[in-house]
């Protein structure tokens, strides 16, 4: 596969002159600021994104810097936010929408699935809709209902959308800028329980490509595939597995649509065993797609079926039980054991 991304796929980017340590939330803020400085057609729309800077402060300070015309506090209506973003894009702008929480994206479902995703294809490629929809996603923060969902599979299942999921500060900075630069609509997932995690961010780094996974850790025995919030879980599980003498690799998908099948196949060939970890329920989740695609592409090298670790096929439960619901290191290690025993 050809990629215009010149940077190595391994986790650490070579330190640039402007590498600083910041939280994932601040890195996204810096990425948005940079995109708005570079292109005055980038506008932000969302609930409470102005003076408040969004409920997670990802747009903090941007209205002060770029004005209320470019950082727009929308009326409280998600369908309006996405529908208006489509109109802005038709007029040549690059809107970045914020959906306040994962569970509140559904009022905009028609605008996303039937309008945003399809307009380019309908127009025979004449219409370009560079719209980004940022979504704080996933659980683990003890929140009330509708604030902890993982709904990437709905959107990945919709042709015409790119789906991106960022995992750490440095990469989030690169991915958000790539998403804004993309001429395709992008659903951009931000792992809300990792917003406060700190890491190095190279402010000079080029935007990432939107079709390349990252191998964060090479392994010989098992490959863990994760995205967004579960990347950290997978890394911790891989580390724990070394204590038992196993060499476990970790791939951060970064993009769910498209999937970087080259990287996944290469890892499957190296380890012969693969476990996909995500917060969404396993039934018809991204793990199911990866398991099927890897089985089809490299059945002959597999030592075990591709296993999935996710949450159960239940509505996201009340906060007091979310720790039993979300995949944790124990559940990942359990799957690693099962894969090794085949």
């Amino acid at each position, binding site marked *: 596969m050809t990629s215009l991304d010149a940077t190595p796929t391994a986790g650490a980017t070579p330190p640039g002159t402007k590498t600083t340590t910041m939280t994932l939330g601040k890195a996204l803020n810096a990425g948005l600021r940079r995109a708005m400085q570079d292109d005055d057609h980038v506008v932000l729309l969302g609930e409470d994104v102005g003076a408040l800077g969004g409920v997670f402060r990802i747009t903090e300070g941007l209205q002060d810097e770029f004005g209320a015309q470019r950082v727009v506090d929308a009326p409280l209506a998600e369908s309006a936010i996405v529908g208006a973003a489509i109109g802005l894009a038709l007029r040549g702008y690059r809107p970045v929408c914020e959906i306040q929480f994962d569970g509140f994206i559904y009022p905009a479902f028609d605008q996303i699935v039937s309008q945003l995703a399809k307009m380019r294809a309908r127009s025979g490629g004449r219409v370009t809709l560079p719209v980004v929809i940022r979504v704080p996603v996933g659980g683990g923060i003890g929140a009330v209902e509708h604030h902890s969902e993982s709904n990437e599979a709905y959107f990945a299942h919709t042709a015409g959308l790119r789906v991106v999921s960022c995992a750490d500060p440095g990469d989030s900075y690169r991915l958000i800028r790539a998403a804004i630069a993309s001429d395709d609509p992008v659903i951009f997932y931000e792992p809300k329980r990792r917003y406060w995690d700190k890491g190095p961010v190279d402010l000079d780094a080029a935007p990432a490509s939107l079709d390349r996974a990252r191998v964060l850790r090479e392994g010989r025995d098992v490959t863990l595939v994760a995205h967004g919030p579960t990347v950290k879980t997978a890394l911790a599980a891989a580390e724990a597995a070394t204590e038992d003498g196993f060499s476990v690799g970790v791939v951060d998908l970064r993009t769910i649509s498209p999937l970087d099948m080259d990287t996944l196949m290469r890892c499957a060939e190296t380890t012969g065993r693969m476990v996909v970890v995500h917060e969404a329920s396993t039934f018809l989740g991204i793990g199911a797609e990866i398991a099927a695609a890897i089985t089809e592409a490299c059945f002959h090298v597999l030592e075990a079926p591709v296993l999935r670790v996710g949450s159960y096929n*239940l509505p996201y439960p*009340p906060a007091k039980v979310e720790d039993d619901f979300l995949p944790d290191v124990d559940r990942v290690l*359990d799957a690693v054991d099962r894969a090794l025993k085949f």
Partner: protein
Amino acid sequence: MSSTHDHVANDEPSLEVAPRREVSPPVQFVTPEGEVTALGEQHGIDLDLARQLYRHMSLARRLDQEALALQRQGELGLWLQCWGQEAAQVGSILALRESDYVFPSYREHAAALVRGISPTELLSQWRGATHAGWDPTSRNLHFYSLVLGTQTLHATGYAMGAVLDGGEHVVAAYFGDGAASQGDVSEAFNWAAARDLPVLFICQNNQWAISTPTSLQYRTPVHERAAGFGLRSFHVDGNDALAVHAVTAQAADIVRRGQGPALVEAVTFRMAGHSTSDDPTKYRTAEEFAAWEARDPLTRLRTLLEHRDTEPSWFSALSAEADELGVEVRRACRAIEAPKLDDLFDHAYAHPHSLVDVERLTHREFVDSLEVAG
């Protein structure tokens, strides 16, 4: 109505539909200083009702303060205060019959208390133990809806069912000034009006939707918008419990008689932040808060009652009752147990579902394996 958009300025005859220009000031019976207005005198002041309202409002405020403290102590995950909105909630729900089915939003704690929802039921959702604190049919109060505006359509459908059943009904739905921007709310207004459905929409306009002021939310106030949809519309000082009660009673009467849906816009203020996670100093001024503090719904009613010879002993008995409630709230909160994930597998479907059955088993085996591993 705002006149920032002036109509045709030259001498040409305007072909435009005449704009609505009359402003309907909110109905007020008692001023913030506790004086009875001319309209209040005309309507008559029922002191027994005033005491009943004041009692419920005081208890609600105590519960709200206790819950805030419990959140700060880590006993609740989140709390959304109803501080400042006690009159809008108590005044409206007390004007309904207990048989009237009500769909709250998520801040209607004062209304819920009036309907007999216990502290345990009320707090369990915010302690992260459940998504729905109470059995909705037992008190004709639906559980909270967190996805904004959705409950207005549920009320519309519920009202349709009530009409099919026959008889006289009121189905009420609470929502906020922010939620009013959701398409669902306009759809509910429209359908209810088109079919004369017995829905009473109650909008608590507390001026803010998190950090978004109503000035960024809409140009036309919700009560005017509702009138445009064909609803009978009311506009009331939401911090005046007696006025809210009277207005809601009148609106409910229209709805009950089958004369179509109605809307009450109660103008009030969210005194606290949006939730315990919010910092309102980021977007609003101390002056605005102070101006609304001077219009506190409890103070106003207390002044009226004191002027009209309610004994100090009545107030001290009420304050003792509030203290008891405070003790109960703290006890109840700490006693709320977390559910077991295992039990949740039973509730997702009405009929056996093979995937859920398999996953329940997988979950049990996994938990057992951890116990064996110790």
